[in-house]
């Protein structure tokens, strides 16, 4: 799965720490999501969607091997 969470974060002018604080997770979680190392749960994805004010499929997408 690939994502553009980093792009959305930069659009909102937030650091990883600030984004993590806003949705109640650790900075390591945001870093891992942005690097594609971790696929977040539905709840976390929905929180990101609410913060970015965009539907989930606009910043998360499936890759071919998925």
């Amino acid at each position, binding site marked *: 799965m690939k994502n553009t969470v980093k792009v959305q974060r930069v659009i909102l002018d937030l650091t990883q720490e600030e984004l*993590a604080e806003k949705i*109640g*997770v*650790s*900075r*390591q979680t945001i870093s891992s999501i942005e690097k594609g190392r*971790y696929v977040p749960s539905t709840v*976390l994805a929905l929180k990101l969607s609410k913060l970015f004010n965009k539907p989930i499929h606009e910043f998360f997408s499936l890759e071919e091997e998925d």
Partner: protein
Amino acid sequence: MGLKEIYQWDRRMAEKLRRFQLPQSYQTVGLAIAIIAFVGLIARKFMTTEPDWIRSLCLNLILVGLLTISLSKEKVEDEYIAMLRSRSYQFAFIMGVLYVLIQPYVTYAVEYLFNPEEAEVQMSYFQAIAFMLMVQLLFFKVFLKKCS
């Protein structure tokens, strides 16, 4: 109490146990217990007389200290940290089993080189549990560091 109620109670207890964690400050407490116990273990070498139970107590306190650190929360606990913790327990379990299987024979081989008559295959519970706890803590910290 019917079977259904018993299953539900079991599930609730298992969930409570799975989620059990000590506050983050207990990491320091656990470290202090382990260090004090270790120092006590070293110090008894310099005592002329000491009861047998002191060694056993020090070893058990080291395990208590390591377990306390293992059960303590990180600064921020979330689903990803929980996944890393779970993965570190998996590694610790597998490596612990391998250690218990292999290490006695390695010790025997080394002891045999120096003293064939006294060499024997043995493994204490302290070695096994301490190894597993240390591997779990090490892997957890490495996983956390990798994503910083």
